């Protein structure tokens, strides 16, 4: 059994610093430069980074530890979103009740689906969760329209009761945390750079850190060890007289609560819940995030989430006219040729680029981005050792026996 060690503390501090400084780190290019296109430091995207980070961390507790591949996690995220928006409509625009209910609903929903799905393992489990998620999607999309507003999505309106808030007049109220507006953004100008510090982002970031810390605790706990044991050989565990079901169900519910939390936060940042949040493509996305980042590692899923969201939001906005300004300095024929060449990979073709990168990662870095990082560190470390330590070099020359 491992405990929460020094390494974990360092990792947590590094992540905390990254979250704190993200508005600066993600805006490396001056606002007026043509590379500003690649800046990701605006509130909406940063919020998405940390919220989908939470989603992926939760998914990783199930998939990374137990190896149970759920293809229906988006259903919990969607349920959490709907719960949160209903809280905004009925109770108050304060985000606390919304987030709490979102987590509870995510957990309950996961308990229900997990109880049934976990009777099978492997591919059957995946198919069951996929079926449940698609059922939830269909319900939200059309059958439960009075509850979910169908395709249009659940939105706030002026006539909502909101019993704890003063009656809204004129404009729609905005989500807040005891008076701190989630939309409130302070822009800092530093020379040609612009950094946006957003209240909603920092709240989500803080919750992400707590979620991350909790996931480290779970990874290092005896419970986490049991989950790993399920992954390595569930049959042997059964034969030793252990019932694995309570452990897997607990992991499933916990990761469902993480998904509910992410859904609630999404609604808290932008009070709208759409059925497409529950679609199988959304469930597939979190699987991609986790695998891309490195399943079973602590930080991997967060990196994967950031990677995919970056592509979705930044690459999809590069259009032909942007390409023309990039290659504008080149001769006309070359410019057109380059634009035609790049065109299928940007704009609406961002899926293609992402797919190619995903393939490269899975083929060459089966452990995801985290493995990439480890390899780079390994190479650098080896070089340092070689340069600085003649004994080590001599040792490495020793023939193997």
């Amino acid at each position, binding site marked *: 059994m491992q*405990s*929460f060690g*020094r390494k974990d*503390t360092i990792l947590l501090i590094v992540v905390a610093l990254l979250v704190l400084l993200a508005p600066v780190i993600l805006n490396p290019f001056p606002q007026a430069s043509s590379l500003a296109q690649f*800046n990701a430091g*605006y*509130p*909406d*995207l940063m919020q*998405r980074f940390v919220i989908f980070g939470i989603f992926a961390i939760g998914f990783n507790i199930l998939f990374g530890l137990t190896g149970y591949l759920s293809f229906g996690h988006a259903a919990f995220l969607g349920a959490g979103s709907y719960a949160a928006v209903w809280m905004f409509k009925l109770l108050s625009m304060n985000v606390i009740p919304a987030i709490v209910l979102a987590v509870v609903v995510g957990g309950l929903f996961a308990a229900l689906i997990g109880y049934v799905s976990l009777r099978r393992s492997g591919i059957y489990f995946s198919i069951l969760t996929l079926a449940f998620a698609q059922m939830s999607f*269909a319900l939200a*999309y*059309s059958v439960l*329209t009075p509850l979910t507003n*169908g*395709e*249009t*999505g659940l*939105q*706030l*309106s*002026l*006539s909502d009761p909101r019993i704890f808030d003063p009656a809204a*007049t*004129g*404009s*729609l109220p*905005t989500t807040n945390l005891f008076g701190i507006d989630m*939309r409130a*953004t*302070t*822009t*800092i*100008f*530093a020379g040609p750079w612009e950094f*946006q*510090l957003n209240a909603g982002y920092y709240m989500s970031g803080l919750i992400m850190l707590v979620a991350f810390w909790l996931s480290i605790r779970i990874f290092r706990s005896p419970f986490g060890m049991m989950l790993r044991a399920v992954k390595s050989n569930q049959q042997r565990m059964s034969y030793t007289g252990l019932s694995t079901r309570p452990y897997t169900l607990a992991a499933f519910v916990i990761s469902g609560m993480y998904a509910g939390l992410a859904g609630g936060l999404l609604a808290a940042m*932008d009070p*709208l819940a*759409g059925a*497409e*949040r529950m679609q199988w493509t959304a469930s597939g996305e979190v699987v991609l995030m986790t695998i891309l980042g490195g399943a079973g590692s602590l930080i991997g899923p967060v990196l994967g989430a950031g990677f995919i969201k970056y592509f979705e*939001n930044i690459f*999809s*906005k590069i*259009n032909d*006219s942007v390409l023309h300004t990039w290659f504008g300095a080149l001769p006309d024929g070359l410019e057109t040729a380059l634009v035609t060449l790049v065109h299928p990979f940007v*704009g*609406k073709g961002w899926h293609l680029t992402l797919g190619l990168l995903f393939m490269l990662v899975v083929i060459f870095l089966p452990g995801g981005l985290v493995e990439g990082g480890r390899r780079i560190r390994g190479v650098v470390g080896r070089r340092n050792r070689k340069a600085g330590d003649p004994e080590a070099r001599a040792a490495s020359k020793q023939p193997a026996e």
Partner: protein
Amino acid sequence: MTKATFTRRGLLRTGAATGAGLAMPTIFTGASWAQGQGFTNAPTGDTVTLGFNVPQTGPYADEGADELRAFELAVEHLNGEGDGGMLQTFSEKNLDGTGIMGKRVAFVTGDTQTKSDAARASARSMIEKDGAIMISGGSSSGVAVAVQGLCQEAGVIFMSGLTHSNDTTGKDKKANGFRHFFNAYQSGAAMGPVLESLYGTDRRAYHLTADYTWGWTTQESMQAVTEDLGWETVNNVLTPLAATDFSSYIAPVLNSGADVLFLNHYGGNMVNSLTNAVQFGLKEAQANGKQFEIVVPLYSELMARGAGRNIAGIPGSQNWDWKLENELGSRYVGTNAFTQSFGTKYGFPPSQAAHTCYVQTLLYADAVQRAGSFNPCAVAEALEDFEFDGMGNGPTLYRGADHQCFKDVVVTRGKENPENEFDLVEIIEATPTEQVTYEPDHPMFAGGALGECNPGA
């Protein structure tokens, strides 16, 4: 377990660093550019950024692509490039090709994916990252309603593109949102008399309806109108927007006792459902001793192109058609000017989606010019109860009570023998404005409130 040790020196160092960190923001005392002028994304440099948020993927992707072409053309004309298009025929002469209020127009684009969620994310990034002062586009009412809500909260103007649901300027109307396109109620009001003259007063109707706000209100409007004619409604079946095969929905129609099928579908949906209906032989079928008929309440050239021969003889309504001025005279001036410059640039005539987006961009630019400010509240005031002409629809009113445009509605039908691939629909009539005007508190539009204009920041 970790043990924290505090030393005097360490504490001092940490304290100093924290203090410096906290003081940082005050060193760069940039009052946000937004706050400087009292509204979100007030343009400061010599350019102004507009955000064009259109579906580039999903069932409405064709419409989105055409909208984007129109936006590019509008920006060209505002910046004084090209032949000026409708700026020559527009009744207001405030725009002189030097951009908007002397600022050159720049634009950013995004993909709504025909999903409310993705559309809002894309619009938010335009507002937060690119500093867009106005958002336009959209080719689905679900998306339009969602993005309109976002623009209201963020404090920018939303000039909706193709959105035909009653709710956009009905129960979901917002003070910052404006719609030039017509709506489901107006389609019904225009098509009623035409349906009566084509198919009589004793008919039984079956509705297939796209399952979202636009489908619901279109179906409601068509049912109300046809029941006024004395028709009977047999059934209304809701179909998912993401559906691509409608066979299972079409199969029960023939045995239902209906003799008219309403396809309350748009874009790729309609192309697929109509193709299925024709494959099932509905067009040749007889029911109740009458010829079976198909009606598509909202029509477009793009859909006609997608559906090909199947569209022949099927009636529907449109906001605008590129042949309007040629066939119905100079009341619809502006049509030819726009078709001309669009055709020169892209090699084919524009769709109604392109037209409404082009017009919305010019109307916004003109309103800013007249208001003398980019402030959304000033712009909204300039647009409210604004009357104009020369934009291809004849005399038009932007009603202040619900931010809906009132103008003639075009009733069309698929051509039996099209001469070329762009001339697929024929105009039956242009229904005059009076016939499609309704009170702002009409029951189909009741339940919402504009609220107050929000300048944001």
